[in-house]
């Protein structure tokens, strides 16, 4: 396997992958600067790497990635570390490595407040949207088959497109990671019209992605994340992104810390849910 640390030391550079609109994890603000919860944690990891290698100066290069190219870019060495909203699951573990989990989401549903849809069973026979390539898409399709609900499922290219589909009335519900749903709400024209409802269909662990079988590198990243969580530092970061107004519109997601997250912060681990 590769020795990422050695490479970083030799080149004095680290290339980070980030998302462009995964609010509030990793996205551009209106000045095209990358911000977000995952991004701040990633920077913590970078600081740890710099300290570990005893580098006076470490150049950071940022490269935006999409859900379809992020794995390949890690593998072919274009980026060294990606912290965004990437789910850690066993399939992906065959191709890439994951750090300690930094967030746990439940997959839920966003609907219009006055639509009368309160939970997944209400969706039977309706049009429902989700983002292509996500775990939600799988769960939704499986639910549709298993329970013979007769939904028409729209797989949109990205979250923005999914929300547009919901907003324009093409679909009555948008199934996605709850945190991201709140994020989409944050940019809606009329945030007050929308609600996140329904029982979580699954829980998923977000981790930072890196090359497989590089224990030294993984350890530095893991230690940095663990330290941030156990020291309570992470609570400030969480507060900043989930309980306070955030760019671009200054909306407050109002997404309190879940029990699963509290447990995570107490004893960090890198296990995939499933």
């Amino acid at each position, binding site marked *: 396997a590769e020795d990422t640390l050695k490479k970083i030391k030799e080149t004095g550079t680290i290339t980070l992958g980030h998302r462009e609109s995964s609010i509030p994890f990793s996205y551009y603000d209106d000045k095209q600067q990358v911000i977000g919860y995952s991004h701040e944690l990633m920077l913590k990891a970078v600081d740890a790497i710099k300290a570990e290698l005893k580098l006076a100066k470490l150049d950071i290069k940022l490269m935006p990635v999409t859900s379809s190219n992020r794995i390949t870019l890690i*593998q072919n*060495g274009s980026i060294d570390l990606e912290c965004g909203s990437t789910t850690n699951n066993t399939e992906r573990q065959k191709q890439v490595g994951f750090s300690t989990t930094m967030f746990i989401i439940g997959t839920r549903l966003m609907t219009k407040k006055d639509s009368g849809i309160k939970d997944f069973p209400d969706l039977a026979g309706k049009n429902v949207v989700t983002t*292509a*390539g996500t775990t939600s898409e799988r769960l939704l399709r499986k639910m549709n088959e298993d329970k013979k609900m007769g939904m028409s499922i729209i797989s949109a*290219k990205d979250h923005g497109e999914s929300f547009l589909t919901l907003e324009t009335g093409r679909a009555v519900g948008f199934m996605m990671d709850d945190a991201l749903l709140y994020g989409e709400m944050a940019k809606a024209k009329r945030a007050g019209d929308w609600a996140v409802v329904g029982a979580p269909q699954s829980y998923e662990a977000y981790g930072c992605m890196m090359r497989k079988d590089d224990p030294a590198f993984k350890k530095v990243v893991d230690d940095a994340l663990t330290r941030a969580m156990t020291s309570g530092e992470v609570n400030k970061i969480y507060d900043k992104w989930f309980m306070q107004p955030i760019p671009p519109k200054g909306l407050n997601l109002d997404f309190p810390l879940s029990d699963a997250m509290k447990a995570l912060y107490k004893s960090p681990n890198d296990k995939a849910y499933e």
Partner: protein
Amino acid sequence: MGYNWNWGVFLQPSATGGDTYLGWMFYGFKMTIALSLSAWMLALATGAVVGVLRTVPNKGLSGIARAYVELFRNIPLLVQLFLWYFVLPELLPTSLGNAYKQSNPLAQQFLASMVCLGLFTSARVAEQVRSGINSLPPGQKNAGLAMGFTLPQTYRFVMLPMAVRLIVPPLTSEFLNIFKNSAVCSTIGLLELAAQGRQLVDYTAQPYESFIAVTLAYLIINVVVMFSMRWVEERVRVPGYLGGK
């Protein structure tokens, strides 16, 4: 490069159960074919009419045809697709728009893709038809009229049969383009070949296998189209006419 090749991935059952990933690819392949062929029909029919109108003496008609061509030629396909799919239903009267948007999403995606690809290509077909007609010897039109044919009859019996033969080779490349351009339709969620390829990457994290398979599938389509168009060319070749040119 630390990559685990795994061609067996195509035979694995897919993550949502039921089908294998190969089955997914095949579904995408069929979707690409169905979409491209139906869009091609639309492009040929519309393009032929607009192309003919561009050459008629009536200034008003040819002006309208020209505006049509310019409109569809000068906006990128990707943008047109978004406009058809997302923007146009918003401009319909509310009740009609809503009824449309509540209908089967696959039908909506297919319809938008077909209309978009078809009309985008029709502008190009129209240009080919026009240049085919214009490259006929000018005497042919006069000869038709001088026999007592009306202008529509002259088009029907004299100019179009030859013009159509002349444009078979350039139309071949438009026909190929429509298959290639259909890859763009994955951006509105239509699960055609390129989209299934990307889904495969998302679900199996085996990007190289998937890309290679998709590229091969396009090559196959290409070869089939080229041979069938060459067959058409051969079939319509006029005896004694140099190389059909």
